[in-house]
């Protein structure tokens, strides 16, 4: 689960990580008020769940409360398009108004799970302000790492090693260690999958400050943290993605016109891949999951055809835990309910496949049957040309 920068900063502050003075605002008047409280030059930051805001005009400076009000007025209610959003962009419903900070030095601090090491890894870099993936690709020597052993936890000596590794010295080392320890504690206590400060700046007065912050939570651990639910902002996601989550379906909207419904994430990705290989484009990723029932299949089918971009549908079911007859009943129920009028190709295999075919055949729905993956992809790609 992703949250906004202002929410991440509130959490960081609770873990004693210094952040610039400021507050979130939902109206231009409120933004002016915060600017007045903070005093001097302020920065207005659009709150969206995406990076690349600066280049997209989502981060702007204001020298007076009046200017802050004007800028906030332009941002609020608009949609911000960055390289990480869809072409439609993400809605700006709130802005963060903070004291503008002059920072000669920009650093990077982040914690993620390292699957190979099977532990969280703290990464620090003196190349702050740019995306860490880019630093990793171009100048990997500029990233230094320390692993967090779950038995002993993160240790101060590791913090000192990271601090000196990114050029901090003297009075800056102790606060740096405190910041990193705070991030580790936040990760552990709230079940985060990512905690990042980019950039962490050293101000002209030599103070360390988290200028931007990103916190993602492990979806699987959210059941332990009901208090985090209120941080969720559905407006930042595609409405179909939100609906899919309600039904507990793994769905991701894409840009093509071949809607697909598959059981299992690996097979779902492979189905998207073969659609592309055959010369068409998938409209979505959709994994109904292993233990899906008729109701869920029917919801999933309705969800995927509710995307207006979808002009043809490929259903690929390899029955294991999920039985083909259950899948077939779900497809028939969903297709009847929405009176589907676009070509539908179904490929089924595995548990109870004969019963599944019989249900589809007797439904009277206009469905093309495919015997294998390749046949299915060929038929669905040809379907458009025919219609």
């Amino acid at each position, binding site marked *: 689960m992703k949250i906004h920068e202002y929410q991440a900063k509130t959490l960081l502050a609770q873990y004693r990580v210094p952040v610039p003075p400021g507050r979130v605002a939902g109206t231009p008047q409120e933004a002016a008020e915060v600017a007045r409280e903070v005093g001097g030059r302020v920065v207005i930051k659009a709150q969206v769940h995406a990076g690349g805001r600066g280049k997209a005009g989502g981060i702007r400076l204001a020298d007076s409360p009046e200017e802050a009000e004007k800028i906030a007025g332009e941002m609020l209610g608009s949609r911000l398009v960055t390289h*990480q959003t869809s072409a439609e962009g993400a809605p700006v419903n709130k802005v963060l108004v903070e004291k503008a900070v002059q920072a000669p030095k920009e650093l990077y601090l982040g914690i*993620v*799970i390292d*699957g*190979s090491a*099977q*532990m*969280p890894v703290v990464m620090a870099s003196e190349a702050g302000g740019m995306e860490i*993936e880019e630093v*990793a*690709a171009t100048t990997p020597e500029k990233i230094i790492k320390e692993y967090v*052993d*779950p*038995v002993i936890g993160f240790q101060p000596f590791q913090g000192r090693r990271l601090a000196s590794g990114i050029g901090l010295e003297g009075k800056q080392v102790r606060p740096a260690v405190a910041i990193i320890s705070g991030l580790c504690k936040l*990760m*552990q206590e709230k*079940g985060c*999958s990512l905690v990042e400060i980019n950039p962490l700046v050293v101000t002209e007065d030599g103070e360390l400050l988290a200028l931007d912050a990103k916190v993602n939570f*492990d*979806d*699987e*651990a959210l*059941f*332990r943290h009901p208090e985090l639910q209120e941080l969720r902002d559905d407006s930042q996601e595609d409405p179909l993605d939100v609906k899919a989550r309600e039904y507990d379906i*793994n769905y*991701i909207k*894409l840009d093509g016109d071949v809607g697909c419904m*598959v*059981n*299992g*994430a*690996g*097979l*779902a*990705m*492979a*189905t*998207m*891949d*073969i*659609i*592309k*290989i055959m010369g068409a*484009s*998938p409209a979505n*990723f959709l*994994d109904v999951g*292993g*233990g899906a029932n008729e109701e869920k299949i029917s919801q999933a089918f309705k969800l995927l055809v509710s995307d207006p971009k979808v002009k043809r549908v490929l259903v690929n079911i*390899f*029955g*294991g*835990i999920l039985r083909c007859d259950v899948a077939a009943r779900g497809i028939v129920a969903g297709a009847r309910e929405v009176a589907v009028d676009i070509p539908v190709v179904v490929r089924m*295999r*595995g*548990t109870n496949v004969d019963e599944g075919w019989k249900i589809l055949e007797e439904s009277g729905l206009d469905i093309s049957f495919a015997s*294998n*993956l*390749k046949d299915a*992809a060929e038929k669905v790609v040809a379907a458009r040309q025919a219609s």
Partner: protein
Amino acid sequence: MSILVDKNTRLLVQGITGRDGSFHAMRCREYGTDLVAGVTPGKGGTDVEGVPVYDSVQRAVAETGANVALIFVPAPFAADAILESADAGVPLIIAITEGIPVLDMVSVARYLKDRPVRLIGPNCPGAISPGSKAKVGIMPGNIHKSGRVGIVSRSGTLTYEAVAQLTELGIGQSTCVGIGGDPIVGTDFVGILRLFQEDDDTEAIVMIGEIGGTREQEAAAFIKTKVTKPVVAFIGGATAPPGRRMGHAGAIITGEAATAKAKVEALRDAGAEIAPSPADIGLTMQRVLQGR
């Protein structure tokens, strides 16, 4: 022979009284696996279709000599179940459960390190050795055929797809293993590739990877230096957008190395034969075997 599971497997199912646990325990037994015990705390002394249920793994092992644990325990309690079996000295633990918090798995992995225990999964379909009639997992048994190709995969249903393609071409399998789709798994590709390389009855290997992480690159490095048997590989997710989790918690593109393209290049460079599409995994293996 095969790897991991065979005629000597004495299976214990943790969570055997649940819906999925009881259903799949019976399918494993029908396939031919020696199912000796079930464990559900609080239900000791009862039985599930003749299989004795115990309150603890320790008790079950002491009384039945179980040597493989299959876990269906719900995610919030699954880490505890894995640790219980490890503590009881079960040498092979296969965790089917999906959705275990990743920090739980950090602790589990740390505990298992340096102990004589192998964990497969979590979030995996399990392992099956058709020649030994041993199935420890949720895969449909009837699509498999006894033979000499080993399969290792991060996915469930895509593995079934590959198995079905091989079986249709008359190519049987020694053992098929799903290592799981989570960011942290007990055994990675390298662990299974090593077992297949050492297994006299495995002649060739199918490896199915996907986007996210760098496990396929680590596998490529191992294949390059240590694997002499032919490897056919497919990487799913070439069309996946960056930054989005594609069902599996571990299937997310976080940088260049996590893309399908980077993984395919690493495997090709290591000498693996790349299946051009997910529909060609069987045909690619057939070609490789005929060319030997």
